[in-house]
């Protein structure tokens, strides 16, 4: 039961994050959505290693206390969080630049200005 609860929660977070990116037009909300989504994914990744009744996978004095939790997903989550953090920093820097450049953070307006500058004639 706990498994489905965990996975359901993680996937719920992902879907909320995605909804924020897709439905909202404000770039900052999109970035927040991105962060929510990454946390959801990390939660999913971590919950994969869950074993009911498992202990922390630390060998105390050479003997394991009982059923251990799978350590590998935790390692993966560590890296994923770091990567998420890095990408988020870059995103915020770019948002500041876009705000200076276009004075607006509405995704649709930014996209239209961007295409105009690229010289894409709207034939």
């Amino acid at each position, binding site marked *: 039961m706990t498994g489905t609860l965990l996975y359901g929660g993680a996937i719920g977070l992902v*879907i909320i994050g995605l*909804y924020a990116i*897709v439905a909202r037009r404000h770039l900052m909300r999109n970035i927040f959505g991105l962060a929510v989504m990454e946390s959801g994914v990390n939660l999913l990744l971590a919950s*994969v290693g869950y074993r009911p009744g498992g202990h922390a996978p630390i060998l105390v004095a050479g003997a394991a206390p009982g059923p251990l939790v799978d350590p590998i997903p935790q390692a993966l989550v560590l890296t994923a969080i770091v990567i998420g953090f890095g990408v988020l920093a870059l995103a915020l820097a770019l948002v500041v630049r876009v705000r200076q450049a276009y004075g607006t953070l509405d995704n649709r307006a930014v*996209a239209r200005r961007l295409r105009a500058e690229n010289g894409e004639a709207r*034939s």
Partner: protein
Amino acid sequence: MSELDFLFAFAAVLIAGVMCCGRDGRAGWAAMAVYGAMLVAVMAAAGKVAGGSIPSALGFSVLGHKIGWRMDGLGWFFSMLTAGAAFFASWYAAGEWGRAQPGMKTQHLLLALNVAAMLLLVNAGDLLSLFIGWELVSWAAFAMMAQKGGPAQPAAMRYMIYALAGAMAVLAGIMIVHAVTGSFAYKDFAAAFGAMSSGMKWLLAGLFAAGFGVKMALMPFHLWQAAAYSETPGASSAFLNAVSARMGLFALILVLVKVMGLSALAGLHVPLIGLSAKGLLMWIAAFTMVIPTFIALMQTDARMLLTWHGIGQGGYMLLGVLVGTGLGTAGGLLHVFNYATYQMALFLAVTAVIHRTGTSDLDRLGGLITRMPWTYVTLLMGIIGLAGLPPMNGFVSKWMIYRSLLDSGSAFLLIFAFVGTLGTILSVYKLIHNIFLGRLRPQHEGVREAPWSMVAPMLALGGIGFVTGWFPGLALNLTDIAQAAMGAPELPHGLGGVATARGSLNMIWVVSILLVAIGFGAIVFYFLGNRRYEVNQLNNYAGGHFLSPQVPYQFSHEFYPGLARVIGPWYRGSIVRAEQGIGTLLDVSGDLWRGIYHLAWTPLYLLAATVIALGWAIMGGM
């Protein structure tokens, strides 16, 4: 170094020569000399090629496939045509016409490139080299058509799209053959073709017929040829008209007739109607004969009229070859030779008219016979050939095609052929009447005859047409070699023509009697009446009205009003609308796809994809 290598060497030397010193005046004559040498080399190789084929050193192997070139009878025939056409085109361009042209160096260069590409195509050793040659010919022709700029470019663009679509079909066909037989050689393809399933046979026949049909401007793909060939500058367009469209016929003959074999094609039956693949192709050839001819009837530009006829004549050749009997194939191939001679003469004559008067619009010409008599004579010989009337060679090949159609009992095809000939007679008369006969317009008063450097090649071509018309045996010897290589049954023929059990033709007698009779008519005419007095063209019956130069007294616009009232409504241009339909479909879907990239935020699909994937994942149970 076999003759074929000499040929390729000549072509390469020519390209290099024109590339480096194409500018100075003598380049034209030098090019002509080289083409002449090529023609002689090809003729010399006639003996060796009659039996087997001449191998060539040119060849390489890529990704495990050996690609090579060799010349067999069919290749020899078309190489001879190419070299001959190039010889006359360069002879014409070397004279004053060439000096009057703006970019003559590019024209010489493109002509040399075209000849080289055609030699590579017609002497292809296997399917892959055939495709390589085919592409080179397409692109060389594209360059030649687009060189004049202005209206020539959209016409060339349209040609390029058709040609490339055709080439892709051919490439697909070749690769399917490779997938089935594992090699590109003709004999493997021929051997395996019999055993293929009828669906596969239909697919291959369809792909090759469509691909090669595009170049030959067969019926559904014929829209590009008229505009493209008319916009090319004079001598090159004469070359293109005479030979370039026939490359499609060469490939069709090579693949459909020689490799697949007409009997196999006849075996394939269209499920509903009792028509076989061969029958279907013959009917396409029949329609290609008639409809372009009647479109030509309605043209008001001389070059467009001639190019539309070029498409029509292509139908005759294909029909002749597809009949399959010795007589039919010989008729088809002879028609290729005859067509090359008179179509080139016609186009050079029209170019001479353009050179002198500046226009080829039939509504603004007239009465030039008094100013350009020799051009008139060439055009006359050309139209007699094009219409297929006795003294000229056009008649012989048409007679043979009709005779073979009669033997094979396909009466309705013969009716189409006959109606095509009638249409040709009407439209060629309109051509010669609107340009040379009728009233000389005041502005053409000072026009002089075209210079001798232009008139000589024209008359030479007309002469060839007349001589091969009088002694068709000369031309039939050439087609025998091609026929033998094609595997078609041998045709017994004398110098005068063909003697079959059910009706024979001896042109020596026909033309001699015609000349004797004309001599007799001349005697009756010149000696029985009083001496004739030539009058001014203003001394003409006009219902008592006094004619003066300012009064336009010429009937040339819309030359067949009665006929136009009857067949006018039939010109709905349904195929043109179909083509435009495809164009707009392409544009609309292009906008649609491009629109997707302009949506504000597109990863809606991501959302859908993820929801589905996640659902699966959970359902599958972690």
